[in-house]
């Protein structure tokens, strides 16, 4: 193992030519076969070092599995290949949940950000969007340090994976079990579980203007071999496209004429472990805002014929369209463009909202039409990427494929977009790959537990026809699944499962204890409302109702922060004075949501019940004893939902079909149990 690790650290010579990578891979595997006498053997192999792969390998290693991360280029592990920011509305929720399961991205962002800003502060804590502009170089360096040096059980290797090792398993007749991977030089690495996180690299293709070249990312070769393997295994595949904007030179932009947008005065860290972020609030860097105009629109309208990406039918995201789609679909010329710095020391500006695929010289003309960018230098053109993805309905809630036990998928390969969405799947796939090896039951997150559950359930139940992104509107229990309480929802569960460190768990328990004590104390103080008004400054409305302090704190009409309560009732609540700002805020949020969350309890309970009613993978939906109508058989067979909850969300399914199915399953279970008994 040591040998491998040393080899992995070899400096990367050269940039992004497949020939070179091949050479290096050859060199690597040769040294491996000579230096290691036995064939290579790991518990878990993670393929791909993006945001899904990073979380997956770290989680598997945290669980105690001997884990190998294989990446094309070690240098690009943790690279942020698109926008220089993390988080946002919905995405910030995911990051908090990843952190609650002891994942990496939240912690790394707390030491790599250059501007921290919470979105939606005026709309209620349930939809606050924690976001930060990130220094690309810092993020990569911090993440690599964590993975390469601070993660026990993890080995990192540079290689290209061409195929999977499949064994016919004894237990399940006819199906295969994934037992490792084959590298491009033909050498094999054995493992009990494999996590594929190949992002946009499956048959990846880059489009600029009419120019098309195979690549997973600008300068990186695509993965053709693996794509063929998945096709051979008859995974249902689809194709998606996405894009990235041109990059601009900071020194050639006239920022003086643009409005600036700064960070929060009191940055809120992503990780529950941190009370503050690494940088001083006043050192934060600004973003700037500019707009497109009629000139920009004209360039786009007049040049559709040289824009292959736009002409093609492959589905792109509706919510993150290229500037071309925006101009062509919405008949207006003014669209926002955010100029985002890529780092503290970087001269690169990322014009967010300007993703485009025009030929390079037209892109150059286009960016110079923007206000403040009249003399800008374009460092690299924007481009479109097309890639294969696997229909996520091939996956179980654990992110293991139904077809090939031992094979897990996470990230863009499943049709999602975004670092946070990828990382969420990565951590779940990593945990469950390790669980499989360690003979533990899989860890699944319910829709009632978190956005991660919503994400995975949406994907595995409905599939997707466009790159899937998280929005808070997707979560039916939005008021319960808040960024502030992600640890209360998931850390205990993660700890029981073995993916949360003692350190974090201890920290979590302390916080939880403080909150519980404070809330119990607040609830004990009860008096009629008119008495409250004599003791605490409250707006004047008359009521004889007896209210407790927790209710006063949570009542939007009272406008009474915890600090006011504490100073007004020092003899009762004085002990709460020492609670830190973050926890005080959390207590207030709990109070604010107490009533509305309780109102959802029975709905949540119903969903949990339906989620816990499992549909065995071998159910024959056409069984005459089941008697399901043909139409519903078709619908349900396509998804093969794993729970009754998932089945009930199949559009148009009849309630009677669900009841028949439930009845059929329970009857078979009883029969099965009886036959085993005799």
């Amino acid at each position: 193992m040591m040998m491998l690790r040393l080899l992995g650290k070899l400096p990367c010579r050269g940039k992004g030519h497949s020939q070179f990578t091949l050479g290096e891979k050859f060199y690597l595997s040769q040294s491996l076969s000579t230096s290691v006498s036995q064939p290579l053997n790991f518990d878990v192999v993670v393929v791909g070092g993006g945001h899904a792969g990073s979380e997956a390998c770290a989680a598997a290693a945290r669980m105690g599995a001997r884990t190998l991360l294989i990446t094309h280029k070690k240098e690009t592990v943790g690279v942020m290949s698109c926008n220089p920011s993390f988080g946002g509305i919905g995405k910030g929720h995911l990051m908090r949940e990843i952190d609650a399961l002891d994942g990496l991205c939240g912690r790394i962002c707390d030491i790599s950000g250059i501007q921290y800003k919470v979105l939606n502060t005026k709309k209620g804590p349930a939809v606050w969007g924690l976001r930060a502009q990130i220094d690309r170089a810092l993020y990569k360096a911090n993440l690599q340090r964590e993975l390469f040096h601070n993660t026990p059980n993890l080995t990192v290797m540079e290689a290209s994976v061409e195929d999977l090792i499949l064994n016919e398993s004894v237990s399940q007749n006819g199906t295969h079990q994934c037992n490792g991977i084959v590298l491009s030089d033909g050498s094999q690495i054995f493992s009990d579980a494999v996590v594929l996180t190949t992002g946009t690299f499956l048959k990846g293709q880059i489009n600029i203007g009419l120019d098309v070249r195979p690549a997973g990312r600008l300068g990186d070769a695509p993965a053709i071999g693996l794509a063929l393997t998945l096709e051979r295994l008859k995974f249902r595949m689809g194709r998606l496209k996405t894009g990235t904007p041109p990059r601009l030179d900071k020194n050639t932009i006239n920022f003086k004429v643009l409005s600036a947008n700064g960070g929060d005065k009191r940055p809120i860290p992503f990780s529950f472990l941190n009370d503050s972020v690494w940088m001083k609030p006043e050192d934060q860097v600004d973003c700037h805002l500019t707009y497109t105009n009629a000139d920009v629109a004209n360039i786009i309208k007049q040049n559709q014929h040289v824009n292959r990406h736009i002409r093609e039918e492959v589905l792109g995201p509706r919510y993150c369209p290229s500037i071309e789609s925006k101009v062509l679909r919405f008949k207006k010329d003014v669209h926002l463009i955010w100029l985002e710095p890529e780092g503290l020391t970087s001269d690169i500006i990322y014009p967010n909202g300007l993703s485009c695929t025009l030929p390079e010289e037209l892109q150059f003309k286009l960016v110079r039409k923007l206000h403040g960018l009249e003399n800008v230098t374009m460092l690299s053109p924007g481009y479109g990427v097309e890639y294969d993805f696997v229909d996520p309905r091939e996956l179980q809630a654990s992110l293991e494929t139904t077809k090939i036990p031992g094979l897990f998928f996470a990230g863009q390969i499943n049709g999602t977009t975004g670092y946070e969405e990828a990382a969420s799947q990565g951590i779940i796939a990593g945990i469950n790959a390790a669980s499989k090896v360690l003979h533990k039951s899989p860890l699944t997150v319910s829709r009632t537990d978190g956005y991660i559950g919503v994400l995975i359930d949406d994907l595995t139940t409905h599939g997707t026809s466009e790159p899937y992104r998280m929005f808070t509107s997707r979560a039916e229990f939005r008021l319960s699944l808040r960024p502030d309480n992600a640890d209360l929802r998931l850390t205990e569960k993660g700890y029981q499962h073995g993916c949360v460190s003692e350190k974090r768990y201890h920290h979590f328990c302390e916080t939880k204890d403080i909150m519980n004590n404070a809330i119990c104390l607040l609830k004990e103080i009860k008096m009629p409302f008119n008495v409250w008004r004599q003791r605490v400054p409250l707006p004047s409305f008359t009521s004889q109702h007896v209210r407790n302090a927790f209710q006063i704190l949570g009542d939007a009409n009272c406008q009474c922060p915890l600090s006011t309560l504490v100073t007004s009732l020092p003899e009762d609540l004085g002990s709460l004075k020492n609670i830190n700002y973050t926890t005080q805020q959390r207590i207030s949020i709990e109070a604010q949501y107490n009533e509305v969350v309780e109102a959802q309890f029975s709905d949540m309970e119903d969903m949990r019940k339906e989620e816990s009613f499992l549909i065995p993978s071998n159910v024959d939906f056409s069984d005459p004893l089941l008697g399901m109508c043909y139409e519903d058989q078709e619908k349900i067979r396509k998804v093969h939902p794993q729970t009754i909850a998932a089945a009930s969300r199949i559009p148009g399914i009849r309630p009677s079909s669900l009841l028949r199915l439930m009845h059929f399953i329970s009857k078979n279970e009883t029969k099965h149990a009886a036959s085993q008994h005799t």
Partner: protein
Amino acid sequence: MFQKVRAICKSFACREFNVDLSRSYSAVGRTIFALSSGRGKSGVAVVRVSGSQSRVVLSAIADETCLRKPRFAQLRTLRDPQSNDILDKAIVIWFPGPKSFTGEDICEFQVHGGLAVVSGLLHALGKMPGLYPADPGEFSKRAFFNGSMDLTEAEGLADLIHAETEMQRKQALHQMGGSLHILYNRWRTVLLQNLAHVEAYIDFSEDENIEDDVMANVIDSLRKLSQEVETHLTDGRRGQRLRDGVQATIVGEPNVGKSSLLNLLCDRPAAIVTAIAGTTRDVVEQYINIGGYPLSIADTAGIRGESTVNDVVEKEGIARAKQYAKSADVILLVIDSETFLSASKWQEHQDILTFQEFVKSHMLQLGLKDFFNGQPCILKSNQEGSIIDSDTQLQCLIIMSKIDLIMDESIKKSLNKLQTQFLNVVVLSCLNGDGLPALLQKLESILEYLCGNPSQESPALSQVRHQHHLIDCLENIQDYLKKTSYLSEAQKNASLEGSQITDLAICAEDLRRAVQHLGKITGHVTTEQILDVIFRDFCIGK
């Protein structure tokens, strides 16, 4: 260290407040009610209530003494707890959980089968706090989850599930009638759009240029909607009268004898019959009784191609005809025998395939194909054994009319043979009544199926449920307006902005619930539908 941590965690497990959301809330669950017996000519109707409130319900509607003898049929006078009006004298049975069908407390009312009694009881239940009309299949589902499966193993479970779920499936479209259906669907569209705009404002307004007036527009639009719903609820008689009985609609080309058929069935000239094509413009509806089953039969305007119709009134008539046909239980498709003969050049011994082909293309021509779930042919050959089409909710009789005009006896004879070859074909003369006994007999067997099978709910009872959902929907819209009214003010008056922060996530929850309630009438609203509106109306894309 580990032990210590666990100890800390355990120490507050007993506290009143438990932040990990893991406590059991089963006691909080909703109490549901529904009519558990089907419609039709039953003497007794069974209404069930399940959930923690059942005890309260039984005490309020009957009296507490019923609770003393569980699982024992007792005769009681039922009263509306609010008005104290007598509802019925009926059998009540108290099944305390877990020894009940659902595993929860259940009370069962076996009332007289009349519509007034049943709807009165359901109304009274609906007014009680914490009681909700059951969703399709909810009773059985609770039985599964509460582990009282063994009770549901009883034979007839399939029928029960059928009764419980299919009962409400088609009925939304079915008995609501055209205008109500359109109205509810319009409300749904308005509500969906407003919810989508609020969701967009939550998810995207910080980075995207979503116009600032979005929230104010939502408030304006919802105010109008809430007024409309309120007016509708307070004037129960407005809108189309709910129709009771099995719905049959007569359709066909102009001048094939549809109105004559209606008059023949009613045994009186209910509709004007002339030789002029397009005499019937509006829908003419009659109530008749066939074999003791209630039948509402509607005569409609003849359907012909859009291009040939210039008359606005006739166009509207055709649209109504199709609307009626869509919501019917039974379609009586009238085809002029001569049309068939000339179209197919049919001879005496020709293959029956020709007839099938003809019916198929004729239905396509009339634009009726979609009504039958795209089934290739609706004809039932006599090998199939039953006239009933259990795959679709729609039964169809094909009536070959004007047989009296066929002079060639051998052709007439072989036409008549179709009646035996196909179960749902009748060869009829409205003029001399030939074929009427066959028509009545075939209609009766369809009615027997529709009424005996509890697959449909009486419209008066659907109305009770609709009203319940509409009231809930309205309340939620009003809650939203109450909580956000300041928003529109703030936008008009910039100085107010920021002075108060309303939790929009909490407000949006009211709208989400409003949509859910309306969805119980008009069909479930999915996240995808909301996202579709967002991306249609706003340019999202940083």
